[in-house]
């Protein structure tokens, strides 16, 4: 059974200018021990999706529709009190710009111990600190740096501390939202390798959100491509990379300069992302799509199955997509 099953999730924000359709009708499942990456550019809804899974949307955010089934239990039916239990113990999150998530006036190991003690009443202080020590060793922070304050840590170390905090209560699912964005290339590589190792070792399922398709490709088993609030392609890493189907996926892949291979002219995607307060009817990528047809604006969304583990969203009639 899948650990996480999301069915038809729709999320929006009430803003001054109107209701913003941030995420529309997203469905996916995540098996235990596997990792799923969500890739998209700013405004595509991936962070909103991540926050919604933890039910941590800001006050003006609302989950309009859908179900989030964790181990078969719908999280949207839970009360705030029950969610607080679930957070950190079953689902943990590594936020964007997590480096500022550490309280600057407390020592790092204290903060992690506090997280442990809050969620596990049976622990006493000594045990908590022992567990913290073990965690630090796991994430690769030297023992003599445990008692430092956050500002004494480098960016990479802070990120490791955040990862340690996320692992503290041994969650079954970790949602990582751009965990390495602000880090240098080499440190980023080390942290990502660390994350992959930890995930394998503990069999933790992971949802990895990033704007960088290259990172997601290195880290995750499966990839979901998001555009303007919709999930447009979903499949295993190999399938999506070697055989991208959706025009947006293809366009996205060809806007990244590569280090190896032929140096072809980058093809940027013309135009801008659509306004999500008044989203266009039909396919949201239509205005920028090189393969657009008249039916795209009026057709219905259909998931075209390209292979057992690869599907793409299309508004043209199914056969056309397969021919691209």
């Amino acid at each position, binding site marked *: 059974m899948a650990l996480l099953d999301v069915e038809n999730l729709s999320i929006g924000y009430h803003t001054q200018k109107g209701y913003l359709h941030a995420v529309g009708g997203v469905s996916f499942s995540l098996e235990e021990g596997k990792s799923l990456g969500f890739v998209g550019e700013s405004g595509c809804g991936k962070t909103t999706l991540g926050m919604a899974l933890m039910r941590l949307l800001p006050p003006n955010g609302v989950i309009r529709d859908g179900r989030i089934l964790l181990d078969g239990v719908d999280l949207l039916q839970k009360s705030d009190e029950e969610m607080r239990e679930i957070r950190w113990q079953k689902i943990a999150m590594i936020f964007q710009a997590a480096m500022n998530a550490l309280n600057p006036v407390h020592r790092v190991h204290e903060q992690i111990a506090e997280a442990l003690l809050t969620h596990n009443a049976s622990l006493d202080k000594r045990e908590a600190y022992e567990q913290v020590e073990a965690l630090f060793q796991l994430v690769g922070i030297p023992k003599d740096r445990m008692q430092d304050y956050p500002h004494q840590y480098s960016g990479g170390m802070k990120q490791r501390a955040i990862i340690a905090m996320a692992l503290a209560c041994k969650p079954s699912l970790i949602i990582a939202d751009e965990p390495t964005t602000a880090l240098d290339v*080499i440190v980023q590589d080390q942290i990502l390798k660390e994350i992959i190792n930890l995930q394998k070792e503990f069999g933790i399922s992971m949802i990895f959100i990033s704007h960088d398709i290259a990172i997601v490709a290195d880290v995750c088993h499966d990839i979901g491509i998001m555009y303007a609030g919709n999930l447009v392609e979903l499949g295993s890493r190999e399938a999506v990379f070697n055989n991208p189907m959706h025009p947006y996926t293809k366009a996205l892949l060809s806007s990244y300069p590569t280090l190896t291979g032929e140096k072809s002219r980058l093809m940027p995607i013309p135009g*801008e992302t659509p306004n999500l307060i008044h989203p266009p009817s039909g396919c949201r990528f239509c205005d920028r799509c090189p393969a657009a047809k008249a039916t795209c604006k009026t057709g219905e969304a259909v998931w075209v199955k390209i292979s057992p583990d690869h599907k793409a969203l299309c508004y043209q009639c199914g056969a056309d997509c397969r021919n691209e």
Partner: protein
Amino acid sequence: MKMTNDKKAILELENIVKKYTSRGSFFGAHGKEIIALNKISFKIMRGEIFGLVGESGSGKSTAGRLIVRLEKPEEGRIRLNGREVTALKGKTLKEFPRKVQMIFQDPYQSLNPQLSVFDTISEPLVIHKIGNAGDKETAVWQTMKSVGLSPPDDFINRYPHQLSGGQRQRVAIARVMVLNPDFVVADEPTSMLDASISAQIFNILIEMRENLQATLLFITHSLSAARYLCDRIAVIYKGHMMELGPADQVIQNPKHPYTKALIDALPKFGLSDEGIKPYNTLLPVKREASEHEGCPFFPRCMLANTTKCSMEKPLFKKIDDSHWVACFYAKNE
């Protein structure tokens, strides 16, 4: 008429040293002196796109700022077209911005929120008293079209907060282009933009080189972007030049262990199973080392010799026709 075939050096940095003294943190450390650039030298040829690649703290942005005279170096000289620019006065000082300009990293902060797009782009013309009102409008219109802010009428009266990140960066580029400078420093112009928008900006920069015959210094942390855009790539680490050479050579045949480590660290788009052998020049744990002696990469270098590399600084030397490296063990393979 500038000739793109003229391979003379348009910009030269010679033994530049830049120091910063920090005032000491709250917890009592006294003011530390940080050497952002430690005697770096390189030349940029007319008409090329020169890439300066480094991580944070490498000094790459500092080099850019020194070139546009936002700051002054402690030692060393910067020459533009053979003339020293570190100590300019009077009329030549006033005309300097018409020759050298900069595109900043953060499109959300590099535009004055109180000025409309037209005001922002026309300002350099106003400052340098170029043309009458009609000329200015024409110049702004043309520049806006060449950066893709078309039709210009849609944008001229907008304010920065009504523009997307990509559009803002185009305005910033237009502001630079309107003066028709010879040399443009682009300081990480796409690091705050999405990939597809970055691609648009890259292409604008390439066109800038072709249409304006401007020389570009592209400062970035991304080797892949540098490979795409640049003719030559220089790698900088902790204020020291590590490697410099034609882009393809540096990427396919890197000589410095740091460059190799950078290449290893880049995500491979899931192609890592394809048997691309990593260089593995990075130590898993940093070594203890003196900050001022020896090679700056010594604490992390797998290939280092513990005596020589910790005591002596390797010189930045040519190892073949156009390839420079600062390493005792770089071989010319």
